[in-house]
């Protein structure tokens, strides 16, 4: 009996660890998307990476982590580039261009998935919603299939690698990313390449979304990209504090969401997204109440001064 409990407990740990890393990576990347007003780009890339995963699998015949990452990053960059080119050539608004490009790429992905259902281990529902509860069962075996040791879920290792890449990239490129995000033409006047840092960021978004795919799916990853960063934006006074706050919000969302899903016996990913939304609303409410209090305080001061 006790061994059964231990296994159960381990499952929870793997799920929580994966969710935490997914949320933290999304939050860090999301900060830059929010500040650059490119939240829709996160939505776009999170969908079109499906095509990248499918193509990478069909071409290489393997579903190793590196092949998946490469496929996703390639399609992610193509999405960003195509959207921008369409915007420039057709003079459509940039949000319309993004909408055209990513839905097209995503649909091609969906068709390919249904055409090759037998060969690809991806079902359409899982693509859209993800299922983090199944994450612990798809594990990586180190070494031989029979004699090797089980080192834990695939999704966990993928997001751990991506989390480290995102963390190191943002730490190293922090000053440049700050300047480019704050004022592109100022950055350009200092000789900083805007396209380089734009596609650099798009690479990080692509990697983060593909790694989050198994866990939360294409729709809910958008919630994790945008909501914690947006909540942090409400409070932050510097870019550094915004990054920390976004990560804090994302972790709170994971813990509260996990408890919520346990209590309601519902989807973990959806509960995490709902918690992120609730935290944002609570933050907004507290800020509004404070504003009213401050106003009252000022009025009282004025009154006492007059009296």
């Amino acid at each position, binding site marked *: 009996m006790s061994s059964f409990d231990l296994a159960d407990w381990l499952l929870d740990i793997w799920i929580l660890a994966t969710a935490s890393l997914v949320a933290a990576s999304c939050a860090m990347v999301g900060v830059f998307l929010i500040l650059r007003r490119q939240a829709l780009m996160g939505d776009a890339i999170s969908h079109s990476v499906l095509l990248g995963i499918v193509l990478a699998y069909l071409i290489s015949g393997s579903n190793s982590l590196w092949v998946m990452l490469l496929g996703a990053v390639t399609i992610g960059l193509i999405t960003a580039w195509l959207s921008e080119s369409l915007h420039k050539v057709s003079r459509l608004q940039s949000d319309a261009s993004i909408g055209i490009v990513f839905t097209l790429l995503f649909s091609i992905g969906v068709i390919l998935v249904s055409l090759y259902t037998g060969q690809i281990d991806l079902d359409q529902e899982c693509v859209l919603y993800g299922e983090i509860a199944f994450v612990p069962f798809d594990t990586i075996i180190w070494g031989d299939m029979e004699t090797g040791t089980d080192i834990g879920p695939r999704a966990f290792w993928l997001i751990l690698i991506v989390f480290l890449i995102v963390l190191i990239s943002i730490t190293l490129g922090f000053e440049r990313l700050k300047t480019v*995000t704050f004022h592109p033409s100022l950055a350009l006047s*200092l*000789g900083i390449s805007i396209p380089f840092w734009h596609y650099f960021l798009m690479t990080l978004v692509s990697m983060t979304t593909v790694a989050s795919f198994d866990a939360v799916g294409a729709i809910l990853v958008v919630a994790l990209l945008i909501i914690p960063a947006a909540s942090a934006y409400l409070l932050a006074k510097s*870019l550094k*504090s915004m990054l920390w706050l976004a990560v804090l919000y994302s972790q709170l969302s994971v813990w509260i969401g996990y408890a919520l899903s346990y209590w309601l016996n519902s989807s973990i990913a959806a509960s995490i997204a709902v918690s992120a939304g609730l935290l944002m609303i609570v933050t907004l409410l507290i800020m509004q109440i404070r504003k009213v209090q401050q106003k009252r305080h000022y009025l009282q001061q004025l009154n006492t001064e007059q009296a």
Partner: protein
Amino acid sequence: MSNQIPLQVEQLSIRYHHKPVLTDVSFSVPAGKTVAIIGPNGAGKSSLLKGIMGLTPVIQGNALFYGKPLAEKRLTTAYVPQREEIDWDFPIDVMDVVLMGRHGQLKFWQRPSQSDREIAEQALKDLQMWDFRERQISQLSGGQQQRVFLARALAQQASLYLMDEPFAGVDVATEKAIIELFKQLKAKGNTVVCVHHDLNTVSEYYDYVVLINSRLIAAGPTDEVLTQDNLNKTYGGRLSLLNDLTEQMYRSRLDNAHDSD
């Protein structure tokens, strides 16, 4: 370097969606002077500055900085964008904005050093903004925001400064601080080129004037170029406005004459 021409614009033309914004503009700017670019709204003043800095595509012509293309002289040229183009809600404090002036000298992984911080500190003190160094930029008045961006340009330690309407919508204290800054920069042999819109103050603040209205009307020392005839050519068609302005200008010149007595 001081005997070279800090900025030379050669046959610059800019189109925006096939509409001509600037056509065949050529002029050069002398070293150690303050230079105003003036013209009516929509004359292409800001576009000219952006075209010079490579921030907007030009269809023809180029700009030389001390005889070299911009790529070789980026760090000796500091650009101050228009205040409206800046996202003032961005989570960043005053000190961080000013430190951006040092980024050109740093590799992408490097953080500003102690000496970079000292340069930024001096720039903030020069513009009386040191006390505000930890404020988020949204919590500043318009004039203070302008001074932060001037401090950023100053921290770059450039020798040519291109500013897009630095006097637009600022308070008296800031206006004085900017004029003081101009004097300081000129004393070091640096050159300042500003887009300017207030005709009343041109002759007081600037040594040299470039008049444009889609094309170059005139360029030269203020007292030679700022004539009724040239202003008519530049602002042509808006006579009522122009009459007011020339009258004001006449008065301000009278005031100046009295001042110098």
